[in-house]
């Protein structure tokens, strides 16, 4: 590699990180970084050199509103704010959702009757037509390479979560592989521990339906000791070694 080009790259990266590279030159250098791993490495080196300077600044506490704005921008609390805005007025959206709710209840009623009939085929003299899987919660966790590592499953109303290790992983001596549920809202909660290989089962405090209906993802961390079921992660959480979606199967 041409020394002059390396020196130029170094100079551009330094002034890019410092902020003195401006206008078209800055935009061009951003484009160069997209395709060029060497440029990204040189930029990273300058970021690690200069950005510790930023830590010398005295911290400034943001106003509470900033976090609310972030949550709103990400759609975490959009509906809440909508409702506040429309207080005191006829809320057509709400009325519509009530109407839709009735519709959904009606459909749910039909489905429930169907479910009762299907699970008790004797009631109408019907015979089961399929050998489909029972209604369950299923989680397939993958490792950092995207390879399926752990399968977790439980009957919808069951209180036993079966765990099968598909690809053994390393659990250091004196540590445990802790399974976590990540709900759509709120903090993750501990479910139980996973064996490093083979099969295992976790007794649930409540039905899978109660515990997992709002859970979108599952994750496994390596912890020094098992965490009580339902408890949140420690203040200093560990990174996930396995993760996957939690899916309803019915």
């Amino acid at each position, binding site marked *: 590699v041409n020394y002059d080009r390396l020196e130029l790259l*170094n*100079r551009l990266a*330094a*002034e890019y*990180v*410092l*902020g*003195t590279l*401006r206008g078209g030159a800055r935009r061009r250098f951003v484009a160069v970084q997209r395709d060029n791993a060497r440029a990204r490495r040189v930029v*990273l*080196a300058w*970021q*690690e*050199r*200069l*950005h*510790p*300077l*930023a*830590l*010398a*600044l*005295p*911290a*400034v*506490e*943001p*106003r509470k*509103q*900033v*976090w609310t*704005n*972030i949550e709103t*921008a*990400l759609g*975490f609390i959009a509906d809440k704010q909508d409702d506040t805005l429309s207080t005191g007025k006829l809320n057509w959206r709400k009325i519509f959702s009530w109407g839709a709710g009735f519709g959904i209840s009606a459909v749910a009623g039909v489905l429930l009757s169907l479910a009762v009939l299907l699970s008790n085929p004797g009631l109408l003299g019907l015979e089961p037509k399929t050998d489909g899987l029972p209604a369950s919660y299923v989680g397939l966790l993958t490792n950092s390479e995207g390879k399926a590592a752990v399968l977790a499953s439980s009957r919808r109303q069951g209180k036993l979560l079966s765990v099968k290790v598909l690809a053994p992983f390393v659990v250091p001596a004196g540590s445990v592989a802790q399974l976590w549920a*990540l709900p759509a*809202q*709120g*903090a*993750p909660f501990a479910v139980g521990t996973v064996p490093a290989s083979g099969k295992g089962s976790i007794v649930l405090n409540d039905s899978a339906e109660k515990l997992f209906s709002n859970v*979108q*993802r599952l*994750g496994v961390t390596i912890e020094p000791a098992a965490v009580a079921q339902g408890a*949140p*992660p420690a*203040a*200093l*959480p*560990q*990174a*996930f070694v396995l*993760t996957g979606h939690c899916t309803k199967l019915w």
Partner: protein
Amino acid sequence: MPTDPKTDQTVPILQALLARTALKDRAAFTQLYEHTAPQLLAVALRIVRRRDRAEDVLQDAFVNVWHHADSYAASLATPMTWLTSITRNKALDLLRHVKTADHANLDDSELALENLPDDRAEPSRLLDAGMAQMHVQQCMASMSAPQRQALALAYFHGLSHSELALQLASPLGTVKAWVRRGLDKLKTCLEARGAV
């Protein structure tokens, strides 16, 4: 339990929070914000100079973090470096769009310089700070005054070369040379210390 994002011990914590944020763990994202937002707001505030704009920058930066936390691991950066880069780039972008041509009010550039090292006066502070911060501060102290001032104004306040020339009442070519030599000196000094 907020921790100080300046210390080396917090690196694994922030890495874990970022890894969890990448998986859309909102609780981890909230903790990440609580740990790092005050330090990042300080960065944005120096550059855009108005609290409302700085908070807009912070908001943009964290929305970006939520969407792109999965690219953090590949960046190989330390967590605060990654977060500071996102925040500074947003702040510099905003600075380009709003025409805050008044650079008269830069009195606090001295404040930024005050925060630069004096290891005799504040040994405990340097002990608390991460090693990287200590190295860069001591290397800044080893530069000539104009080099240090040019780098500090560019870094903390986002001044361009021509704005530096105005602010320091010196020819553009001279200012560019201060910046270039200051950067060279910083690199050599940090390498000599076995830092980056």
